[in-house]
């Protein structure tokens, strides 16, 4: 992050080279720019290519009379991959929305004003304990009553974002509560302002506790994203439904295929999250 030559403290041979502390404000640090650029590129990419209206091919059919036709099964793979790609896009975009909404909800929940705190708490509880499917219907079919009409893909992203935003807000809350009381008291004793206290003391310590939960929500969101097929998002489930509709017993292969496709993504992801969890636990101890 910093340049090697430092005119003030030339490091003598054999001594440890100590990098000078970075004194730039956070919004001028290179890391910030890299992350911001990443977000912009991702957003632009999603805007341009996200959820593109896929037409699944219709040439393949199972041989009649077979319970499980392997040729048909393998012929479906390319379309399945296109479907899962759309589902994955919706998941990631929805999760990005959830991270932000979760933060807003968490702040609202901590508000000193009761008129903010209570409705936010009720909203979180309400969204968390009702089915995403009906929430999607609401966004898709009911919002146009107020002249808000969203495309299918955007509806799915918003639906996932709000639904998992409530989960994220609870994770943030738990993470913030996990910072020991002594840290808050020390911040007060050092007379740190709210910005410093949050950005330098509380959030850095809360993040490790929150990351595994967020990872799990990302996976959970991926498992809910196929619901988009109910509002005509051409994701993985829409693919299977379309393929199974081609003849009366064509359901076995596509549904088995998406099941396998799913596991191939979700099991390794779950494994990664658990590794992250263990590593964080390890770093806490040492």
């Amino acid at each position, binding site marked *: 992050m910093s340049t090697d030559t430092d005119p003030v403290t030339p490091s003598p041979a054999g001594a440890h080279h100590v990098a000078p502390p970075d004194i730039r404000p956070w919004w001028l640090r290179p890391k910030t720019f890299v992350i911001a650029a990443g977000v912009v590129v991702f957003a632009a990419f999603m805007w341009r290519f996200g959820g593109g209206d896929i037409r699944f091919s219709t040439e393949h059919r199972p041989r009649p009379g077979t*319970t*499980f036709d392997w040729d048909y099964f393998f012929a479906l793979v390319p379309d399945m991959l296109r479907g899962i790609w759309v589902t994955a896009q919706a998941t990631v975009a929805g999760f990005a929305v959830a991270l932000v909404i979760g933060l807003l909800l968490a702040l609202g929940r901590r508000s000193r004003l009761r008129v903010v705190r209570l409705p936010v708490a009720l909203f979180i*509880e*309400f969204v*968390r*304990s*009702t*089915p*995403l*499917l*009906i*929430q999607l*219907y*609401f966004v898709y*079919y*009911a*919002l146009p*009553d*107020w002249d808000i009409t969203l495309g299918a893909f955007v509806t799915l992203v918003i639906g996932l974002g709000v639904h998992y935003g409530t989960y994220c807000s609870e994770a943030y809350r738990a993470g913030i509560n996990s910072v020991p009381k002594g840290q808050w008291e020390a911040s007060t004793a050092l007379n740190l302002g709210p910005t410093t206290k949050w950005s330098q003391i509380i959030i850095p310590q809360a993040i490790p506790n929150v990351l595994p939960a967020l990872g799990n929500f990302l996976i959970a969101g*991926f*498992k*809910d994203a*196929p*619901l988009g097929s*109910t509002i005509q998002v051409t994701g*993985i*489930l829409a693919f*299977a*439904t379309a393929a*199974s509709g081609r003849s009366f*017993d064509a*359901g*076995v292969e596509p*549904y*088995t295929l*998406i*099941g396998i496709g*799913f*596991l191939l993504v*979700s*099991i390794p992801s*779950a494994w990664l999250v658990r590794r992250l969890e263990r590593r964080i636990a390890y770093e806490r101890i040492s």
Partner: protein
Amino acid sequence: MDIQLPAHYYDRLFEGLQVTLQVLALAFALGIVLSVVLGVARLSPSRIARSVSLAWIEVTRGISTIVLLFWMAYALPILLGVDQPSLLLMGSIALGINMGGYGGEIVRGAIQSVPRGQTEASIALNLTETQRLRHVILPQAMRIILPPMGNLTIEILKGTALVSLISLSDLSYEGVKLRVSGRLSPDAPSDAVLFVNILVIYFVVAQIINGLFRLAEWRVNRRFEGARNGVELSPSPKVTAGAGG
């Protein structure tokens, strides 16, 4: 804006709610059994039991509920050669299997959190492994199991909405049907009112589940705390302290 639906709408929705509750009850029963079996098997001394339960948990947690549901409704019957499977049963089993995967991990964690000394004391009292689990370990694990199990049950309640997609006439299904039929009549309530009402019904059911679990938690915790009556006390007349031999 009138937030209430016409009365005949509620009749239909409550009919659907009954199916929802049926599916929930079946899935819950299966889910609890699977949770205990898997949680115990994960800690079994037998290697086979451990690896089978681990694989089962990984797969059932890894797969999307809705994909599992469709597979069980539309692929499994063909593979097994069953002609007309009961969709209610298939839907409940799919949800129950899903619950069991998560529940198994909850049970495992709770069992592991019971201090080792409890197991050792049970061995010293010569209880069998089953007795140890039944009378010593699980009652204590209950305290840890109940809160996440309540959340899991609400997740399963939410999951029941998915059975509407395999044409079971649950609450969600009835709701969608009402929306479609309402489009033909000019004085039908708006979609927003309809869906908000459905959401509120789910919310109320979830709160009831929440309350039931709170009650169970309270009852379990009370065991650890208070003096209880119920066992009759009869100070023995025949033995005095210290006498013996």
